[in-house]
């Protein structure tokens, strides 16, 4: 596939920390509108890959392109977020001393400069958008609650809401179901499938039931490179995947 038609293009990416190769010659392609699940054992480089895509970590070698043309290795976190890549962290990271409403307002797509925000007045359209998001993430009655007082699952949902508020082209979602009950996990899967209708999504997850509920193409990482790629059935039948990850 030529680079021009891809949304996210990683080719031969490597990075090492103090001699440890966290990512080793990793190549992967995400197309427009695709949802992709990423699995792999601990230390496979899943989070490091997200760090590279979002500009937190610079790769030692390899190419990372967004939309086929933008070289992400030359951009910093803020400009990559502006380009339209949103990220949800493994540990839910919301602004604890802000209300749920303020968390969403801060995430909402709007000019990001200090003077733009200093004189910013919230518009009717923005209020409607926040209302819609509150309904979507089911926190409508918690809007004036400080984010610190939310339950773990609610924080996960709030963070997904903040991600959507940014209106990104690509969402990187790291372990959205971690620490959730089974029912919440299924609801989250439904939510992500909904989101995937209008956005491209990359989900990292350990929960195989969750991955199965998503029903999308799966990439298994191990030791910093792609071990297997394809449908969940195809990947989970792979001998090497069973060896390093699923277990016998």
């Amino acid at each position, binding site marked *: 596939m030529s680079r021009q038609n891809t949304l996210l293009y990683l080719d031969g990416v490597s990075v090492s920390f103090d001699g440890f190769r966290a990512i080793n010659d990793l190549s992967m392609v995400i197309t427009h509108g695709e949802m992709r699940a990423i699995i792999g054992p601990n230390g496979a480089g899943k989070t490091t890959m997200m760090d590279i895509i979002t500009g937190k970590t610079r790769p030692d070698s390899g190419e990372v392109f967004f939309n086929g043309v933008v070289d992400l290795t030359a951009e910093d976190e803020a400009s990559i977020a502006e380009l339209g890549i949103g990220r949800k962290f493994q540990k839910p*990271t919301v*602004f604890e001393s802000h209300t749920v*409403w303020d968390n969403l307002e801060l995430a909402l797509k709007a000019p990001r400069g200090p003077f733009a925000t200093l*004189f910013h007045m919230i518009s009717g359209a923005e209020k409607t958008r926040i209302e819609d998001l509150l309904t979507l993430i089911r926190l409508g009655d918690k809007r*004036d609650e400080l984010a610190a007082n939310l339950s773990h699952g609610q924080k996960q949902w709030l963070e997904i809401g903040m991600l959507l508020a*940014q209106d990104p082209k690509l969402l990187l979602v790291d372990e959205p179901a971690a620490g959730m009950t089974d029912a919440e996990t299924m609801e989250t899967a439904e939510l992500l499938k909904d989101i995937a209708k209008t956005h491209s999504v990359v989900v990292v997850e350990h929960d195989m039931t969750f991955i199965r509920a998503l029903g999308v193409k799966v990439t298994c990482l191990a030791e910093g490179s792609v071990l297997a790629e394809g449908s969940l059935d195809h990947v989970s039948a792979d001998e090497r995947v069973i060896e390093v990850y699923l277990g016998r």
Partner: protein
Amino acid sequence: MMTSYLFRTLDAKAGVFIAILLAVILLVPALNILIAPDNFFHVPNYAVTLMGKYLTYALLALSVDLVWGFCGILSLGHGAFFALGGYAMGMYLMRQIGTRGVYGDPTLPDFMVFLNWQELPWYWYGFDMAWFAFLMVMIAPGILAFVFGWFAFRSRVTGVYLSIITQALTYALLLAFFRNDMGFGGNNGLTDFKDILGFDIQASSTRAGLFVASGLALLVCFLICRYVTKSKLGKVLVAVRDAESRTRFLGYRVEYYKLFVWVLSAMMAGIAGALYVPQVGIINPGEFAPANSIEVVIWVAVGGRGTLIGAVLGAVLVNFAKTWFTAALPDVWLFALGALFVVVTLFLPKGILGTIGDGWTALRQRRVSSNAQAGGGKPPKTPPTSPAAAANVDPQPAE
């Protein structure tokens, strides 16, 4: 539109604060000038100057609270900006002396004549004009803060490392200003001021005027801080304080936000220093002493960081205590200050105002729930639901 926004964000607490401050600004000079000296209600001259000094300290504390309480930048060097503003004002006051100095030189201040300097150094040009000097009061600290912040924030120096660098900054300036070659009067600093804007600096009416100016400066800066912290920018600052990297991933350039608030804060500290100098009558390198800057942080911590009003309260209370202690029990003061800091850190982590605020909220909630238990009657007061009301919630510092 902006002013209406500002007034909407003023809650009861801020209203009370502004009312008290306005009353003080009006009453103190009135009781000083209009009431006969033998009357019980007369405020003596020394008290006016003393309280004026407290107000400038309060403004300095306010500027520290803006960066520390809202953006998490613990500055241990804000005394540097205060002193720079003070020096800018001192230079103006020196030029106003004219031929009345000991050596009677029309342009050169006494200390330069004493050092056998033949002409005024270039950086003293313009300080004979009030408007230029008053502009420099803000611009000089602002430029230093901008250059310092540009490098520090871009390199993502944070936390304790940044605090240490700010401490080094003020110490370096202390050493530099001690040198006679710097052209700022060396060890002795700038003093022997005669008049300001044509008014005799010793006259009680001038003193009262300086008091009013200090009060008004505090009021205006309070309103600016209030607007900034209640705006969306203020919310971004708190976001940076609580989860800096998350803010970056949302697309905010954290370094620009820090730089903005840092420079704004430094300018306010500079104004505080400029109003301080004519009231105490001297500025010398001692003002750069690292201990001074640390003391300011204690004032803010005592009053309650991240509350603005708390910073003012803390500065006035601690300095009042300092005045009392250093007169009554001079040996005990430093122990008392140390003990105060320990007690506040251990038992009042949110400071006086934060603790009162918490108690108030708890009391109201108890009343609401007991109302609800009483059943029927009045429906319990529901928490505000509109976003405008949500914006009124005071950000509480997260520990």
